[in-house]
């Protein structure tokens, strides 16, 4: 990303020429995302592996009981750790976080944590004393562009998949008992809304002057760029939306300027994809729940079950 040296000039020209004639090198349409392939852990709650094209990532959600912040006694804690190592791409440094890595982590955090996608008050056990602390570890395994969209999708999927152990409060609020997941059915997290990040990359087919002073907006916009596309892009914007038609985040960290009308157009166009991805999360989780239900023979435990 930061080091463009690996792309030769000819490669770049070839790529841009293809774009100008309306072709993406992996034959997708300009506004088409790669199909996510989801693997949900059957044994644990809250472990998800996601294949977003050849971008791969693993998400692990864990919960522990902690003391809340003093200024917010009724709210649980929620953290997202982004782990970007050289495993995913040699250019990422293991020791030092590059600007790109900070941006990725920050945008995902803003999309999910800042937008209150997780109901923090429902994580409260005893006000001011004990709350659940939910930690999401996001590990990127292979990098082929677009960590942001994939990361955000992966985290949301894992939050839906995760269940925290049931607890009961005893001794008049003095102590709590954490029930083992085999003892009592664990409780899912209360997710208020599902933010979906979509990254558009821009390419300027003309020269800089026409981009800045020209009348016509002939910049090319690609949704969900892969690595090669990301290395060649001249700017990008992350639009985060949910299916309630709420704009959660806009983030354009420099790059070539885009017209305000184009921004509006892109945001409205994105809604369709947002709906589809939100639906996908719901669908996959539902299917997974059903399977688990079958597997554990949970039907037998139901009150009206015929034993």
């Amino acid at each position: 990303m930061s080091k463009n040296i690996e792309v030769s000039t000819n490669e770049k020209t070839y790529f841009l020429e293809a774009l100008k004639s309306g072709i993406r090198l992996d034959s997708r349409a300009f506004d088409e995302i790669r199909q996510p392939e989801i693997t949900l852990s059957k044994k644990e709650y809250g472990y998800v592996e996601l294949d977003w094209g050849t971008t791969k990532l693993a998400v692990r959600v864990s919960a522990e009981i902690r003391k809340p912040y003093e200024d917010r006694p009724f709210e649980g804690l929620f953290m997202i750790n982004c782990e970007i190592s050289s495993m995913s791409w040699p250019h990422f440094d293991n020791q030092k976080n590059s600007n790109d890595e900070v941006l990725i982590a920050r945008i995902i955090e803003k999309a999910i944590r800042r937008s209150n996608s997780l109901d923090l008050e429902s994580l409260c056990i005893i006000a001011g004393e004990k709350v659940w602390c939910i930690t999401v570890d996001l590990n990127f395994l292979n990098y082929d562009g677009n960590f942001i969209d994939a990361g955000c999708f992966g985290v949301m999927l894992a939050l839906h998949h995760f269940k925290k152990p049931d607890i009961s409060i005893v001794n008049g609020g003095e102590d709590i008992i954490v029930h083992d997941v085999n003892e009592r059915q664990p409780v899912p997290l209360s997710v208020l809304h599902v933010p979906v990040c979509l990254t558009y990359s821009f390419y300027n087919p003309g020269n800089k002057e026409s981009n800045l002073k020209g009348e016509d907006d002939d910049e090319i916009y690609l949704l969900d760029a892969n690595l090669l596309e990301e290395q060649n892009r001249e700017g990008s914007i992350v639009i985060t939306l949910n299916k309630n038609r709420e704009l959660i985040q806009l983030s354009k960290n420099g790059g070539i300027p885009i017209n305000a009308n184009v921004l509006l157009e892109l945001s409205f166009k994105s809604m369709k994809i947002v709906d589809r991805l939100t639906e996908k999360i719901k669908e996959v989780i539902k299917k997974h729940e059903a399977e688990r239900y079958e597997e554990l023979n949970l039907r037998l435990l139901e009150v009206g079950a015929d034993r």
Partner: protein
Amino acid sequence: MELYSPEGLRLDGRRWNEIRNFECRINTHPNSSDGSSYIEQGNTKVICMVQGPMEPTLRSQANANKATIEVNLAVANFSTLERKKRSKSEKRMVEMKTTLERTFEQSVMCNLYPRTVIQIDLHVLSQDGGLLAGLTNAITLALIDAGVAMYDYVAAITAGLHDQSPLLDLNGLEELDMSTLTIGVIGKSEKLSLLMLEDKIPLDRLESVLAIAIAGSHKIRDLMDNEVRRHGNIRSSKLVNN
């Protein structure tokens, strides 16, 4: 606390489409920098100093095709009501710094200055909302003062949405309670070079917020342009005397 009264007045008595007092000066530190500026956007106060284009101190900064832009952001401990020490490696700082670097890489004609570095030092003296916008405006002015070739001004401003009504140029209190959109506009166009929205707004309201923000940034551009011209005329009148 009423952010926007039924009579159409905001906390500090402004109308919805009114910007805060905007003051700017260029060439404030002529001896210690190649270009410098000072801006006040309400109570947000920023000093900016530009060094360069100059020989890079690190070999890795030398790019054979274009200038490297390096932004250093220092936020004074006393810049907020509560005195607080801020580290430069804070994620929010790194994000802002990266955003500014990437914005100005595009609007400065970097290709004219190969193998050099343009170092931009920002000092935030006081924060009262619209920090990123203030920083952007300060950099624009300092770069112009330094005589660095740019395609156009980058003028930035914030706007928010209160209920149904968009509000222009939020102050610190408003920013806490409202979702804030920061935009950076190229000159008098409607082209956005910088865009930052961190809280929810309904998608269908985006257009009205954007519209007032763009109009506001054009106003800021004019105010900055006035200062550049005022200073430029004084300066050129002196040189003619020789």
